[in-house]
């Protein structure tokens, strides 16, 4: 666990960069060394050549005496070679080197004190030989200095890279650990745990913010699921209890086959009700899961509403309501026809079932910007504002509607279908009397 930072991407990246840097330093160091050595040797040889030429011209002017004079002069001149030898007949006549073999051209030789001398030999006249050269240890010293500098640079780079790699990966680890801790806390049941943000707006912060949003959504869904499960368990008890009572009573009371048949029919009706409830719940769950998006196609709301007027106009009339559907503009959206039909059918049926006779039900379709706005409403008694939020909850039924058939799933389905189509339903609070629900469907933009 201690060397965990070694396994982070940040550290690996730092290591790779360090290696590349070290390689660069090495190549650069050796190049500089070779170039410097070359330049120094050339310089030595240039001086030697110039010195030899001076001795030669001295000899040509005034024979050996002048040559000796030139050597002695040169030995104290700045910028001249360090070592000189003028020998005649195997004997040193000037200079600071012992006699040597008369080798002409560039060569190295062992000097006093174990030094290596690089220089140039030249025959000035028959029997007269001159050699000028310099100590090579100067060159070696320069090479060593360059190598040492490069080595220090290399070590420094290694240190900086390792250090920053460690720091960066530790910072990264600290934050990823925070994320892991939050996730683990949630796994352990603390649904409120969230990843702390640093407020730096960097990529990790943005990632953390996104994960937190996801967690919020999951928490909301879980809460919803929990509530629905509770409600289902609770709501199913009632019909099952009724079914049981009915069967028990039949067992006790029935004598004639006709009575049994009637009791069984009632039992079948009750189980059908329960099956319907399950079907409705499953349908909502599937719609919320987005299963139907594949079946989306262009669809004109005007046409859908016109069809609904034909179907429900008579129904509303029959129960003493009036249904007015104003669908003047064509409004093409992308959607699932069967579901959109059910959405509006549910809203219209709600109004028919939950308002007294004489109530006027109105559906209007208008265009507002890039949305098709549909408002379904009535001028009935309405719903107190305190209950508005609960209306869309699954299995929620207001006390006053308990006498009507239904499970409290109509508006939940409306909500699920509307959200699937990107049209969040909104209750128009200011619109009174009655209950008014507005839906804004994104219009389909047909390429012109």
């Amino acid at each position, binding site marked *: 666990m201690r060397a965990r930072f070694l396994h982070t991407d940040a550290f690996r990246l730092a290591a790779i960069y360090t290696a590349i840097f070290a390689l660069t330093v090495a190549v650069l160091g050796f190049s500089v060394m070779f170039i410097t050595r070359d330049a120094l040797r050339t310089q030595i040889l240039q001086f030697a050549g110039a010195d030899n030429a001076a001795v030669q011209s001295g000899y040509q002017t005034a024979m050996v005496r002048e040559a000796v004079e030139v050597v002695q002069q040169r030995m104290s001149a700045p910028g001249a070679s360090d070592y000189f030898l003028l020998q005649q007949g195997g004997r040193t006549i000037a200079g600071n080197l012992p006699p040597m073999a008369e080798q002409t051209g560039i060569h190295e030789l062992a000097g006093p004190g174990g030094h290596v001398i690089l220089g140039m030999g030249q025959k000035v006249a028959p029997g007269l030989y001159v050699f000028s050269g310099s100590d090579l240890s100067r060159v070696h010293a320069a090479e060593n200095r360059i190598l040492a500098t490069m080595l220090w640079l290399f070590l420094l780079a290694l240190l900086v890279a390792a250090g920053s790699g460690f720091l960066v990966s530790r910072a990264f680890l600290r934050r990823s650990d925070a994320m892991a801790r939050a996730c683990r806390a949630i796994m352990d049941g603390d649904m409120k745990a969230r990843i702390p943000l640093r407020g730096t707006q960097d990529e990790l912060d943005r990632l953390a913010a996104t994960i937190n949003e996801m967690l919020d959504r999951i928490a909301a869904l879980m809460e919803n699921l929990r509530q629905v499960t509770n409600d289902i368990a609770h709501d199913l008890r009632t019909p099952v209890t009724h079914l049981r009572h009915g069967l028990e009573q039949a067992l006790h009371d029935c004598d004639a086959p006709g009575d049994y048949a009637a009791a069984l*029919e009632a039992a079948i009706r009750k189980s*059908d009700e329960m*099956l*319907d409830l*399950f*079907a409705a719940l*499953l*349908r909502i769950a*599937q*719609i919320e899961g987005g*299963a*139907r998006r*594949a*079946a989306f196609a262009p669809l004109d709301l005007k046409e859908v509403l016109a*069809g609904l007027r*034909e*179907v*429900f106009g*008579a*129904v509303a009339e*029959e*129960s003493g309501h009036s249904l007015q559907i104003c669908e003047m503009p064509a409004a093409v959206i992308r959607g699932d026809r*069967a579901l959109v*039909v*059910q959405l509006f*059918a549910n809203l219209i*049926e709600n109004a*028919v*079932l939950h308002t007294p006779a004489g109530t006027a039900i109105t559906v209007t379709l208008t265009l507002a910007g890039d949305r098709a706005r549909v408002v379904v409403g009535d001028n009935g008694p309405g719903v107190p504002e305190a209950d508005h939020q609960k209306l869309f909850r699954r299995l929620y039924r207001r006390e006053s509607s308990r006498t009507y*058939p*239904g499970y409290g799933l*109509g508006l939940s389905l409306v909500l699920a279908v509307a959200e699937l189509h990107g049209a969040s339903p909104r209750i128009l609070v200011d619109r009174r009397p009655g209950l008014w629900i507005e839906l804004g469907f994104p219009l389909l933009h047909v390429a012109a």
Partner: protein
Amino acid sequence: MRILVIEDDRKTAEHIVRALGEHGHVVEHAADGATGLARARAGDHAALIVDRMLPGLDGLSLVRQLRDEGVVTPVLFLTTMSGLNDRVEGLEGGGDDYLVKPFAFAELVARVGAITRRAAALEGSGEPVRLRCADLEIDLIRRTTQRAGRDIDLQAQEFRLLEYLLRNTGRVVTRAMLLEHVWDIHFIPRTNVVETHMSRLRTKVDRGFERELIHTVRGVGYVLRAG
């Protein structure tokens, strides 16, 4: 009529076999897709009842294969309610109708009757221009209705409803079948949509005439017949 039921759930299959047997049909049963396909190819069935979910070969592929081979026997798909897209897929895959489990047997019998009748009508001399039952007659081209020589003025919806009843003369049609075929509604409404429209149609078609043609079948649906 000989009917082949391809259904892997033994209980459901037993129920179907018994229910259809009581209505005078000869019912065969296959418990998996491969056996079902072989029997459907070999036998001369009036209708196939095919479960969508079958071990081995699934129902949809089975019917697709039959259709590819040129077998035109009418098919009624059985689906679970969890498959919202099943209806469209099933009808596109060569099915003639679909039924969501669990279903009432009256519904099953009515739908089997409707698809075999439709198939028989297609084998006849093509699409009829007029439909008739006793002294009631509609003209599908001119969209006119007459009873006992008297013109009856029907609205578009009422005409479609009557047309569907006439196409199924003598057979029970259920509320769900009417909702699907007349109004293209694929859920059970909470208001009495079918009853309202049916009562309006009856007022125009039956009221004031000696015999009623539209009869209510309690708990199931309606039937149009002369007797």
